[in-house]
């Protein structure tokens, strides 16, 4: 049962990578990477259940937070050409 969802998520991730490779604009790529992070969180949680080791949920929790920060960091770098400037400038 977990295997079904696991394989589905793997397929999803493969297609997302395809969109990263194809994506005409940089925003398509960032969107696909952001969604890829969501898929990874689901994959880690499913893997924890698949191997009956709930410790993996902590990693999934951390990944959910890091994924958000990385997306914002990439966008900030793209918009200001630097990570140091404040948003108001």
């Amino acid at each position, binding site marked *: *049962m*977990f295997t*079904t*969802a696991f394989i*589905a*998520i793997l*397929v*999803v991730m493969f*297609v*997302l990578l*395809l*969109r990263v490779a194809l994506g*005409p*604009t940089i*925003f*398509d790529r*960032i*969107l*696909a990477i*952001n*969604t890829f992070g*969501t*898929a990874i*969180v*689901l994959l880690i*949680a*499913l893997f924890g*259940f698949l191997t009956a080791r*709930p410790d993996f*949920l*902590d990693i*999934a*929790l951390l990944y*959910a*937070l890091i*994924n*958000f920060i990385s*997306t*914002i960091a990439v*966008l900030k770098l*793209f*918009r200001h050409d630097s990570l140091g400037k404040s948003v108001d400038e």
Partner: protein
Amino acid sequence: MFVVSWILLVLGSVFCLIGTLGLMRLPDFYTRVHAASIIDSLGAILILLGLITQSQDPLVIIKLILILLFMMLTGPTAVHALAHTAVLSEKNRASDQNSEHPQEP
């Protein structure tokens, strides 16, 4: 309970697959965001609900709920930041082109 969990997991997987199909089929960036938000919202909600109904340990359930909560809070913020930046860069490019045109002889 087992049947409910199974149905939720399969439905979540189906919605994730539909979302990726949309990501490939839809014509431009602004419409693809809608497809990606299917995976971010109902796909993630249903799969995590399926895992919640599966587990007995209360700590595991709390962790799954926290994952769901963080995703629902951060997902829209990231998507909004992305769309906002896309609009700004499009405007910048348009104004660049406008200012370049008069310079051309």
